[in-house]
């Protein structure tokens, strides 16, 4: 008992550290909370000078759009339940049912099925069930907080944000796939080689990592605009104009991202003892088999962490996509920026806020699915962005 008292933090320290943590959480989360609140209110409420009116939205309520006590409870319960399922149950199911050696495939199928079923339950089944429930609930079924999804439907369907979403999906999938495929191979090779050449390649990668993105875009832009002319001798009349093609920006984003991916994966590979591949070689694996069957299975935390960083780079990118794509057909971030920069009414501004909130949602899903691997990955590797 005495020992426990000795190592326990003094009350004052504990109190101040909890206070600081909570304070920091509020400061960090407040902007996101606030734009989420704004995005579900009518413009009169959203830009009201009284903060309580912004939160409760009286004007939105008078139009009959709101959430009752039951709606809020059930919604929060479903969200918490989903979070709990993703962190434990889903992983166990995937581990149990995916065939040997195809765990990654099981994860892709499992997370997609899970995401789709969540969307169906949350946005289709739950609202219709709740509207029936609210009619019978009496006092508890009355709306207490203004809530309207009209800005979301405006931004996704009328403003064609779904097209931007598809472009983002294409670009991020391409960037993550290509940079991980080449990054693991290069990182493995460079971590196992002690030659001077490997060192100089890494130094060059470091310099490229440090270059601002605009420098690379300046190099690529003239080529992208004139690519039909330049590529004609090779492809004939089928030579494409790369400017304005979402899949063509994958090349530029991979070029920006690859140095960092290689550095990070190399540091992960270095933490795996080289005796492991020697043992695999002794047991009769070829070089590539040793890499694929022995090294890769213990590399998953590293691969997932690096993949997450590549994903974030492609997903958050503004400069490359806004320069190399046409304004009507870009990815999500440039689309939101152009929505905010237009000469707009207050309704348009709330619509832009709704777009900004909906860009956060996929990130939440991703972090929830991979949180355990991300934490192990972050503490295992040496290089952080």
């Amino acid at each position, binding site marked *: 008992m005495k020992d426990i008292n000795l190592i326990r933090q003094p009350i004052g320290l504990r109190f101040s550290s909890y206070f600081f943590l909570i304070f920091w959480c509020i400061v960090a989360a407040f902007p996101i909370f606030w734009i989420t609140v704004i995005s579900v209110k009518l413009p009169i409420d959203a830009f009201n000078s009284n903060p309580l009116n912004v939160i409760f939205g009286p004007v939105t309520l008078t139009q009959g759009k709101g959430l009752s006590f039951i709606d809020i409870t059930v919604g929060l319960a479903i969200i918490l339940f989903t979070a709990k399922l993703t962190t434990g149950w889903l992983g166990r199911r995937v581990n149990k049912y995916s065939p040997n050696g195809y765990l990654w495939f099981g994860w892709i199928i499992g997370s997609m099925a899970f995401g789709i079923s969540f969307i169906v339950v949350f946005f289709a089944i739950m609202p219709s069930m709740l509207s029936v429930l609210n009619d019978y609930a009496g006092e508890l079924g009355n709306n207490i907080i203004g809530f309207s999804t009209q800005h979301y439907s405006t931004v996704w369907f009328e403003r064609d944000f779904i097209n931007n979403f598809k472009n983002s999906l294409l670009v991020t999938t391409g960037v993550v796939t290509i940079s991980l495929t080449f990054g693991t191979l290069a990182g493995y090779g460079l971590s196992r080689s002690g030659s001077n050449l490997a060192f100089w390649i890494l130094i060059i990668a470091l310099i490229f990592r440090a270059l601002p993105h*605009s420098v690379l875009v300046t190099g690529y832009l003239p080529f992208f605009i004139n690519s039909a002319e330049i590529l004609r001798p090779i492809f004939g009349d089928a030579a494409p104009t790369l400017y304005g093609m979402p899949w063509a920006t994958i090349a530029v984003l991979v070029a920006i991202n690859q140095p960092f991916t290689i550095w990070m994966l190399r540091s992960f590979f270095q933490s795996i003892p080289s005796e492991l591949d020697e043992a695999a070689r002794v047991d009769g694996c070829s070089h590539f088999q040793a890499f694929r069957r022995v090294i890769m299975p213990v590399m998953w935390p590293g691969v997932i962490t690096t993949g997450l960083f590549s994903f974030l780079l492609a997903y958050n990118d503004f400069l490359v996509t806004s*320069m190399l794509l046409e304004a009507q057909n870009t990815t999500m971030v440039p689309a939101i920026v152009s929505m905010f920069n237009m000469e707009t009414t207050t309704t348009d501004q709330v619509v832009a806020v709704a777009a900004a909130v909906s860009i956060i949602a996929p990130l939440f899903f991703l972090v929830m699915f991979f949180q355990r691997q991300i934490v192990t990955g972050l503490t295992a590797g040496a290089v952080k962005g």
Partner: protein
Amino acid sequence: MAKITLCYFASFNAFNSFVTLIHLMDAYRVFEEVIGFSSQAHVISLQWLTYDFLTSDLMGNRSIGRASASSMLTMIGITLLLIPVLRGVWIDYKDKRL
């Protein structure tokens, strides 16, 4: 305080220098903040300058030559910033080989 500084520079090995490098570069090439807050009337960065040259004007022309010049200047700045860090990486590498 002097001791802490000394310790800091003494431990300026490859790992620390990499993190320092990342932070330095991110501060040097600040860009999205200028766009997000539309602060170009007061503060611009070299990246924003390049971006501005590259966007097409009302006539649809892009001043690619000027953009190349400003990106060359950015690259020179980056190289100057990089020299101490690269020196650290090189020394660390040499120590490991011996």
